[in-house]
């Protein structure tokens, strides 16, 4: 769909909600809680490299791997690395974005190639967190 300018878009093509808007319902979630929608959020984080491809625990439990993913995301986007789904983090998560992952092969491609400090649920995770 190409339009010469914004005003030429028919209202019928403007959706009320978008695919990631539902993540706003996860406000306040943190490690240990169970909330409907966390499974989809885990897939989001895996899509962009924050959860390793071997991660397959796609339930609605906010586990330590998801917490590490959230912390890494917050670091990459210059947010407070709380590991909690606070409003400022969710505001970023729901934004449209490039489909390329931020982290490739466990290396953050957003912070000058610094290692992801185990936040991507790889084998080094326990050497960092614990």
């Amino acid at each position, binding site marked *: *769909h*190409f*339009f*010469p*300018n*914004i*005003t030429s*878009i028919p209202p019928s*093509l*403007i*959706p009320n909600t*978008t*695919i*990631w808007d539902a993540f706003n319902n996860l406000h306040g979630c943190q490690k240990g809680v169970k909330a409907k929608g966390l499974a989809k959020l885990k897939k989001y984080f895996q899509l*962009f490299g924050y959860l390793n491809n071997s991660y397959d625990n796609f339930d609605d439990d906010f586990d330590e791997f998801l917490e590490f993913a959230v912390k890494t995301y917050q670091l*990459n*986007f*210059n947010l407070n690395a709380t590991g909690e789904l606070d409003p400022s983090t969710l*505001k*970023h998560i729901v*934004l*449209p*974005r*490039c*489909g*390329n992952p*931020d982290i*490739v*092969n466990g*290396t*953050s*491609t*957003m*912070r*000058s*190639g610094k290692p992801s400090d185990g936040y991507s649920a790889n084998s080094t995770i326990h050497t960092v967190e614990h």
Partner: protein
Amino acid sequence: YTFFPNRPRWPPGRTQLTYAFLPDNQLSDNVRSVFSRAFERWSEVTPLNFTETTSFDRADIRIGFFTGDHGDGEPFDGVLGTLAHAFSPPAGRFHLDGDENWVIDGDFLNSSPASAVDLESVAVHEIGHLLGLGHSSVEGAIMYPTISSGVRKVELANDDITGIQELYGANPNYNGSEPTLTPRDEWDMSGAPPRM
């Protein structure tokens, strides 16, 4: 700025790159000119040059609009969400989500928010990937991952220029002056936070 793992780049000496559009898309001249401008932004700061060719299969960079699953394992997801993706060099594959409402003239001023995305902004970003740049944490950089509706951002930032020149060197005609980052054109979003 960052690079892909192992810093892939177009081979030394390959400064003349060709690009082509998927014939099935039948893009208008206006749309094609948007990509031409986007390539030019990277040409201005590097020795690279980009020329459109009609031979899609033989082009270095192949641009196509697709919807949903299009065979590369990274399906598009409809309006907004992921907008586009591009492969690291020398793959040259540049895919855009055909379900988006793409705005081609960049006139975002004084308009209301909608699910429209500035095509040139996305194109400049994805070309950065095609040349070897990864995502940047610098919010003002073209290579910042989020490219939201409602904003036009097409000027390379210092972060982008430094990164790409580390890979390819500078354009001999580039004067090295500070990039002229114009204020982002944003819609009046009534207090909503600025988005990229």
